């Protein structure tokens, strides 16, 4: 099949060899599970259990609220020990509303009915089951999958693209999933296709995963699923890049994938969908790569959602040396963790512990205008110019240069010989713009409140005046009457 050319992109050292040959192992149940109520894009889920309740594995403990949200299920059977704040897997380390579960060790599933012939379910029924299973995009974005399915079905998407690129260095979970649970992944992909009624199904896998490609191609034989090797190039896993390389189509500025009749799901998501519909198992575990130079035995683990990162490192033999940086997700776009007491969530593709040698010495020096960042940017932006605007507090200037199209892939920062934290500037600027938007909304609201108050005060004053005038008139009338009376007497 003909592939299309991409602009930009980089070739970081993938370091996947550390964990690529490690089969997926199940992590033993930890003593505690801390399950955050917002692990997805959209509204937080609402708890439906109380402290002291006993729950089964896979039982709903918090329901989705609003149009974009996802339900949360108990990752094992046990007792609800607490509902309250716990540090979030977020660079700020701020607390998030979390349900703490004390496992009872039995790991007893809540049995749910399963269809005899999953592929004969109606597309709506598949989306409903995906929604009930709390499935979100497992590639990292954590967008509720059922919402995507419904939108795509209504807009009659032509092409379903399955993202098996796993372009972030170090991560090998999707690779292992495609190699070890191949037929389940293919079943999930076929369910997704059926749920949106797509004509074509293209599975893109980076060509550094030859075993996964062979296994998937073999399993897909005789089905409508096409498995296509694509070049190894970061950020291939970004939806825009993957769609471009496979179909040649580009998402219009400010547009969505549905506008060009494409839907993208991750292989991990396809596997979760299969588990939910064939076995009635909601999303309560996920495959996490534990890696980095500081980890004694890098591994791929199947982990109950809510397990502390600490347990994962411990199971992998602890640290061979003290890590200088901990990350959740990949090294390019992952988030830095303050410590290991942070729970694994649905979007956690990996946890990494880096040694000092693995981190580039980041002594920042002035920009030498080498244009490396410009060549690396997959979107075709001018990172150095945007940073110049942001440093001059000219955010509107940065927007005119395309700040809003930046996908925060970090390619520019990676190649910059001056170690300028380019992507950090863009993240800051996007946050600042969002904050300004919030301030604007608040000011509109307070302006209305102030106007209402002024009107009310004016009305009260008018009423007081009117009352005073009425009193005056009454008094005058009375006096007049009195005078008339006096005269009459």
């Amino acid at each position, binding site marked *: 099949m003909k592939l299309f050319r991409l602009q930009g992109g980089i070739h970081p050292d993938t370091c996947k060899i550390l964990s690529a040959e490690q089969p997926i192992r199940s992590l033993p149940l930890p003593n505690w599970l801390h399950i955050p109520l*917002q692990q997805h894009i959209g509204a937080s889920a609402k708890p439906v259990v109380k402290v002291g309740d006993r729950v089964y594995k896979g039982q709903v403990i918090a329901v989705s609220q609003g149009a974009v949200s996802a339900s949360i299920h108990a990752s094992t059977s046990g007792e609800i020990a607490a509902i309250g704040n716990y540090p979030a897997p977020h660079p700020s380390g701020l607390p998030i509303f979390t349900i703490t579960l004390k496992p009872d060790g039995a790991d007893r599933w809540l049995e749910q009915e399963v269809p005899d012939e999953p592929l004969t379910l109606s597309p709506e029924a598949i989306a409903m089951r995906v929604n009930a299973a709390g499935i979100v995009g497992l590639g990292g974005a954590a967008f509720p999958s059922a919402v995507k399915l419904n939108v795509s079905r209504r807009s009659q998407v032509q092409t379903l693209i399955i993202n098996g690129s796993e372009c972030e260095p170090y991560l090998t979970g999707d690779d292992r999933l495609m190699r070890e649970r191949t037929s389940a992944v293919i079943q999930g992909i076929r369910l997704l296709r059926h749920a949106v009624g797509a004509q074509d199904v293209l599975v893109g896998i980076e060509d550094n995963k030859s075993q996964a490609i062979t296994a998937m191609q073999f399993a897909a034989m005789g089905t409508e699923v096409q498995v296509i090797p694509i070049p190894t190039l970061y950020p291939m896993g970004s939806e825009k890049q993957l769609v471009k390389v496979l179909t040649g189509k580009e998402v219009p500025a400010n547009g969505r994938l549905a506008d060009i009749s494409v839907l993208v799901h991750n292989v991990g998501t396809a596997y979760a969908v299969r588990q939910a519909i064939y076995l009635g198992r909601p999303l309560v575990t996920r495959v996490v790569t534990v890696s980095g130079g500081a980890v004694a035995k890098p591994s791929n683990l199947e982990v109950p959602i809510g397990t502390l990162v600490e347990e994962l490192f411990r199971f992998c033999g602890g640290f061979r040396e003290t890590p200088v940086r901990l990350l959740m997700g990949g090294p390019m776009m992952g988030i830095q963790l303050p410590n290991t007491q942070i729970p694994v969530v649905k979007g956690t593709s990996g946890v990494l512990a880096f040694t000092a040698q693995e981190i580039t010495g980041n002594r920042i020096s002035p*920009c030498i205008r080498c244009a490396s960042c410009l060549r690396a940017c997959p979107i075709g932006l001018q990172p150095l110019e945007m940073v110049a605007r942001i440093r*001059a*507090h*000219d955010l509107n200037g940065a927007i005119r240069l395309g700040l809003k199209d930046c996908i925060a892939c970090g390619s520019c920062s990676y190649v910059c010989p001056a170690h300028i934290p380019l992507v950090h500037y863009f993240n800051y600027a996007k946050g600042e713009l969002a904050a300004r938007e919030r301030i604007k909304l608040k000011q509109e609201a*307070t*302006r209305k409140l102030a106007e209402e108050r002024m009107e009310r005060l004016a009305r009260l004053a008018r009423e007081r005046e009117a009352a005073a005038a009425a009193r005056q008139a009454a008094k005058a009338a009375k006096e007049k009457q009195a005078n008339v009376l006096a005269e009459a007497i």
Partner: protein
Amino acid sequence: MQMIGVAILSLTLLGLALGFLLGTAAYYLKVEGNTLAAELEKLLPGSQCGQCGFPGCTAAAQALANGQAAVTLCPPGGRVLVETLAARLGVEVNLAQVKETIPIIAEVQEDLCIGCTRCFKVCPTDAILGAAKQIHVVFREACTGCNQCIAVCPTESLQLKPVPVTLQSWYWERPAMTV
């Protein structure tokens, strides 16, 4: 007699002509001033808080239009407002030198509030709820941190605090300017 007639006539004409001139001038100048002030007022936050030293946004806008106030006059507007006002009035400002104000809001310390209702009466955006002898509360969403309630509280129960950062509002800090 004829002289008087001429004098009356010329003076009348002169008066009419000058009157007309003044009238038109006043008409055009007045319209110009008013539209500008009204336009500027739309850009201001509109919370009538008085932190600029003027009695409210209307007076502040008038002063801006007359060139009697700087574009940096309004603390709650922050750097964004300075940028917008400067663009509208065509004046140059060095944005880097404009201090960004961190958003603040008032908070009632419950154990100190005696329920005197004074704050409730002065809040320009009705952000305070309470009744006589009841502990008052401030609605975060409606409070602009204007300081008016702080000034009237007899027990120092009201205090200005930075708006707490949440997971929804947090964002990356501006990278340190090392180069």
